[in-house]
């Protein structure tokens, strides 16, 4: 019974990692850049939700919608002012720039919202749901439902819509996509909007469970890097599976062995993956060419 409880809280954790890593891996797959500022998008998403609830007095669901829209716009802005000028620049420049973006956003958040962690309380936080002798807070169930819906939506979007197909084409070969008439700039903007919206949903969903603070992004981003590397950079199904793998094993290890093991597990898996299958568990190996 205890194992099932840990397993289920692992699934909740996995959902958060998945939402976060999906954006990261989408952006990598299409823009070819590793966004070190992704944790800050997640943090800003949580702060927008908090702001909407506390200052604007919105209902939690409207606040989430507000946060997602704001962050989608924000994603568009950073694509335009920072990611697009970096296209085709060497790896080092791109990484330094996104690290700079991360430092900038984090400290702007400290300046605007203050460094103290804040709590977001909603009517749903305290509601408990019981079945089969297990207790869950409604918020956790909401996280699972939203994540499942988003994954299904993304799957539909990428397989059956024109924009989704164009995105997949871009992730396979940017130049070839351009040749067949896909508007690359439009696709990269949409990718960044989706990526930041997913991060914002993650942040907004987590906000009632944990504290909201300007440094919350850093804690997750390191884990998320582990997740996307385990799943294979740029591999969308890999990010989903990797997210659940890390979330569940972390939660079981923390509950059954020792809570000190929590952070070690993700990196333990990461080290094993890097040693034995560095291209990610779910990716076929491609030899790098000159």
């Amino acid at each position, binding site marked *: 019974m205890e194992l099932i409880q840990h397993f289920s809280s692992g699934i909740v954790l996995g959902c958060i990692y998945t939402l976060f890593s999906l954006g990261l891996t989408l952006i990598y797959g299409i823009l070819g850049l590793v966004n070190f500022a992704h944790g800050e998008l997640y943090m800003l998403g949580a702060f927008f939700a908090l702001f909407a609830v506390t200052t604007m007095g919105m209902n939690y669901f409207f606040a989430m919608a507000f946060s997602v829209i704001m962050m989608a716009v924000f994603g568009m802005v950073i694509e335009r002012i920072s990611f697009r000028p970096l296209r085709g620049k060497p790896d080092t420049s791109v990484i330094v720039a996104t690290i700079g973006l991360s430092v900038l956003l984090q400290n702007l958040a400290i300046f605007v919202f203050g460094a103290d962690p804040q709590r977001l309380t909603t009517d749903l936080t305290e509601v408990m749901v019981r079945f089969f002798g297990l207790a869950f807070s409604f918020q956790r169930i909401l996280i699972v439902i939203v994540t499942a819906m988003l994954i299904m939506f993304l799957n539909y979007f990428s397989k059956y819509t024109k924009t989704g197909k164009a995105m997949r084409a871009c992730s396979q070969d940017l130049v070839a996509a351009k040749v067949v008439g896909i508007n690359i700039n439009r696709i990269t903007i949409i990718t960044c909007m989706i990526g930041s919206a997913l991060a914002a949903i993650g942040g907004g969903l987590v906000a009632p469970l944990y504290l909201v603070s300007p440094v919350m992004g850093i804690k997750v981003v390191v884990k998320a890097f582990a997740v996307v590397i385990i799943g294979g*950079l740029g591999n969308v199904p890999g990010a989903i599976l990797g997210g659940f793998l890390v979330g569940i094993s972390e939660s079981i290890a923390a509950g059954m062995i020792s809570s000190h093991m929590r952070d070690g597990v993700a990196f333990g898996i990461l080290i094993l993956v890097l040693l034995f299958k560095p291209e990610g568990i779910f990716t076929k190996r491609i030899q790098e060419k000159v």
Partner: protein
Amino acid sequence: MKTKSGYLYLVILALAIVAPFFIESGYVMHTLIMASIYAILTMGLNMITGFAGQLSLGHAAFFGVGAYTSALLTIKLGLNFFLALSCSVGLAGIMGVILGFPALKLKGPYLVICTIGFVEIMHEIFLNWIGLTRGPMGIVDIPYPPTLTLGSWTIDFTVSLHYYFLVLVLTVITFVIIISLVNSKMGRALKAIREDEIAAECSGVNITYYKLVAFSIGAAFAGIAGSLYAHYIGYISPDSFVLLESINILVMLVLGGMGTMVGPIIGAVGVTFLLEYIRFLAEFKLIFYGIVLMLIMVVAPGGFWGFVERLSIPSLDGKGH
């Protein structure tokens, strides 16, 4: 072309020698000493990131290793400062090789994450090996280097002017070592690795060897800086050697110009003085850093010196061969 950049270096050196005699206040002197220490650090990082192209955020760890080694050896074993300094250099260099090993397999974002992990590990060690490092309390009362007597001259390092010249001499040594390495076969090999690793390997460059050497040399210079810092400030604690410090050094390098000889010096001196004299910047230091890192990469990836080079005659910096 060579002589032109040679004159430039001499002018900078002359400025650095003359400057302290025009400075009255101890505060400006302190800033100048810190700027020179940062110049050594930034030149070390330039070796790893600028010339070999391996983006590393692990520099604060080497800085810390240097500082702790030198402080502990002089306090606990009563070793002479100059011996302790050499030990710092050696140990930091070994640490560089240790971090260099994963760098052989990792690239780009993977390497950055690995170096961040390295800083975190070293910070935890400084913090938790209480028997040796006194943990969060830090090490206090680190002595100044002993007074030297050269004939009729007495060099007393408690006087900041004298300490400044010690730092300056080591900065010049660092500069000379790096410039001679960069203009040798090794420099060309490093640049080949930076531009295209696979192509370099195909042309017979021993990647393993050169990457490890670049890391260990860069780290060894950070060891010098760490030792100088510890004996100058007299107090070190784990909080000084965190990721933020690495970003600090990276900002100086990026702003001055990666892969140039003069860039790191301009960056280190410029950023140190800007933060001291523009209070507005110091208050929003990290926001400023973020903007600098992003803007420079988008607008002028060559940094300040790269920009100057582009404006003036090509290959002023001896990069043209």
